[in-house]
C-alpha cells in the first residue's frame, strides 16, 4: 500500500516536472536563440546551448530598430498609466467605501457594469474618439483611455471596507478634511492592495498590443510590442531569428522583474478579484 502510493507520487512528480520543463522551454529557446551565431540558428538538431555567446546580436538589434525608443515609450506609458490608474481607482473606491452621497449603490452598479464590456468591442469607436480629440499617434491616446477601470475600484473598495475606522475618526476630530484623511491615513494603510493593483495594471499595459497598434502610426510613438511586431514584419526573405529573439527577451525582462518584486501582492490581488466575488 505505502509502496504504491510512493510510486504514484513519484509518477506525479515526474509528470509535474516534465510539464514545468515544457512550460519553460519556450523561454529557454528564446534566450538561447538570441545568443547563437547566425550560422547556428538554422542547425539541426536545434541548439539549446550556444557554442559561443554572440552578445553582438543585441547590438545588431539596436541598429536595426529604434529599440531604445520603443523601450522608453513602453516604460513611460506603463508607468504613467499605472500611477494614474491606481490613484483614480483609489479615490473612487474611497468614496464608495467611506463617504455618503445620493445614489451611491446605483453609481457603484454603473461602475461595475463597465467590467462586462470587453475592451476589444469598444476599440473602433474609441479609435475615432481619439481622432476627434486629435490624439492619434500621441502619448495621450496611449495613456488616457487606460487610466480608468472598475476592477481596481471594486478591489480597493473591499480593502477600504476592511480597514478600521478609528484612525479616520480621530483625524476628522482633529479637523482634517476628507482628502487629507484619504491621502495621509487611508492610502498608506492600503499599500498592499495598491501594490497589487499597480503590478496588475503595469503588466497589462506593458503587454497590451491591439490598442497601441491601432492608435500609433509613426515609428517614434511605437511601444515595445508594436515595435517588435513591426520588426518581424520588416523581414522579407529570411527572418533574422537571433535579432527577433533578442527583442523578445528584452521585452519580457521588465514584467518578470516587476512580478518577482511583488509576487505575493500580485497573487493576492488576482485572488481578491477572483474567488471572492
Amino acid at each position, binding site marked *: 500500500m505505502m509502496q504504491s502510493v510512493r510510486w504514484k507520487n513519484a509518477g506525479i512528480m515526474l509528470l*509535474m516536472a516534465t*510539464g*514545468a520543463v515544457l*512550460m*519553460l522551454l*519556450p*523561454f529557454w*529557446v*528564446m534566450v538561447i536563440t538570441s545568443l547563437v551565431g547566425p550560422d547556428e540558428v538554422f542547425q539541426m*538538431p*536545434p541548439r539549446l546551448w550556444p557554442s559561443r555567446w554572440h552578445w553582438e546580436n543585441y547590438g545588431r538589434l539596436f541598429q536595426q530598430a529604434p529599440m531604445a525608443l520603443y523601450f522608453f515609450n513602453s516604460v513611460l506609458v506603463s508607468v504613467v498609466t499605472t500611477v494614474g490608474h491606481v490613484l*483614480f481607482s483609489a*479615490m*473612487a473606491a474611497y*468614496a464608495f467605501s467611506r*463617504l*455618503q*452621497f*445620493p445614489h451611491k449603490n446605483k*453609481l457603484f452598479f*454603473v*461602475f461595475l457594469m*463597465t467590467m*462586462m*464590456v*470587453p*475592451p*476589444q468591442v*469598444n476599440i*473602433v*469607436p*474609441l*479609435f*475615432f*474618439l481619439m481622432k476627434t480629440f486629435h490624439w492619434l499617434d500621441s502619448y495621450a491616446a496611449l495613456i488616457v*483611455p487606460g*487610466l*480608468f477601470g472598475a476592477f481596481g475600484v471594486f478591489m480597493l473598495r473591499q480593502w477600504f471596507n476592511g480597514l478600521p475606522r478609528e484612525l479616520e475618526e480621530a483625524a476628522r476630530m482633529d479637523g482634517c478634511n*476628507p482628502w487629507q484623511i*484619504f491621502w495621509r491615513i487611508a492610502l498608506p494603510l492600503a499599500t498592499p492592495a495598491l501594490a497589487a493593483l499597480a503590478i496588475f495594471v503595469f*503588466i497589462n499595459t*506593458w*503587454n497590451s*498590443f*491591439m490598442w497601441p497598434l*491601432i492608435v500609433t502610426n509613426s515609428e517614434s510613438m511605437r511601444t515595445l510590442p*508594436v515595435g517588435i*511586431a513591426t520588426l*518581424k514584419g520588416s523581414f522579407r526573405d529570411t527572418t533574422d*531569428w537571433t535579432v527577433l*529573439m533578442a527583442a*523578445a527577451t528584452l*521585452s519580457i525582462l521588465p514584467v*518578470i522583474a516587476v*512580478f518577482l518584486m511583488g509576487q505575493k501582492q500580485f497573487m493576492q490581488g*488576482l*485572488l481578491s478579484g*477572483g*474567488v471572492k*466575488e
Partner: protein
Amino acid sequence: MKPHELQERRWAWLFLAPCLLGLLIFTYLPILASLGLSFSYWNLLGVPQFVGVQNYTAVLNDPLFWRSFGTTWIFVLVSGALELVLSLWLAVWLNRALRGQSFFRAAYFLPFITPMVSVSLVWGWLYDPSYGLFNWLLQQAHLIDKSIPWLYDPKTALWAVMILRVWKDIGYNMVIFLAGLQTVPPSLYESAHLDGATGWQTFWRVTLPMITPTLFFVGIMTLINGFQAFDSVYLLTQGGPEHSTELLVYWMFKNAFEFYKIGPASAIAYILFMTILALTLLQWQLRKRWVMYEDETA
C-alpha cells in the same frame, strides 16, 4: 440637510469625478457609439447615415463571418476545456505538500504575465517546419515521420494557436483553482479517507462539489478571455491559412482597419459583445442550479 453632509457630498463627487468621467467617456460613450455605428453606413467622411439592420444582414449573410464565428467557438471551447482540465489537475496536485511546490507554481505561472507578442514570436519559431524545435522533438520521439507545417496548414494552424493559448493561460487558472481548493475544509478529506474513499472518489464527491463556485468563475473567465484573443493570431497567422484562424476580434479588426467597413465592423463588435454578455448571464443563471456550496464569508 446638515451642512457637513452637504460638504461630504461635494467631497464625494470630487473623489468620484476622474474615474466616473473616464468610464463615461471611454467605456459608455464608445459602447453606445458602437451600437449607433452598427446601424449606420459611414465612409469615414461626413456624418454616418442610418441604414437600419443592413450591416447586420450583410454580416449574417457573409460566409466568412460564420466561418470566423465558428472558428472562434471551436477555439474558445477546445482550448478552454483543455485549460480547465489541465489547470485543475495541476492545482489539485500542487495543493498537496509537494517538493518544489513554489518552483512549480512560478514555472506554470510565468507565461501568463509575459507579453503575448513576444511569446508568439518564440512559438512561431518553435513551430517552424524546417528548423523548429517541436517538429524535431516529435520526429525524435517517432511520433511523426515528416515535419508538420503547423502554421501553414489549415488543418493544424488553429491547433497551433490553441496550444499557445493553453500554455499561456494555464497558470492563471491554476492559481485561482489553488485558492478555491484552500477553502475546502480538511475535515471533509479526513472523513472521506476514513470512509475508505479512493483518490478519484474523493475528487468527484468532495473536491469538485466544494469548488464549484471557483469552477464557475474560472469557466466564465476562460470563455470571455478566449473570445478576446487577437495578438497571437495577428502575429502568427494573420487569420490564415484559408481563414482557418480568423478569430472574431481579428475579423472585426480587419473589417475596420483594413477594409474600412466601419458599419459591419461595429455590427461584428456588437455580436461579439452580445455573445459574451449572454454567456456571462447564462453562467450566472446556471450557477444557481449547479453550485452546491458557497462560502458565505467570502
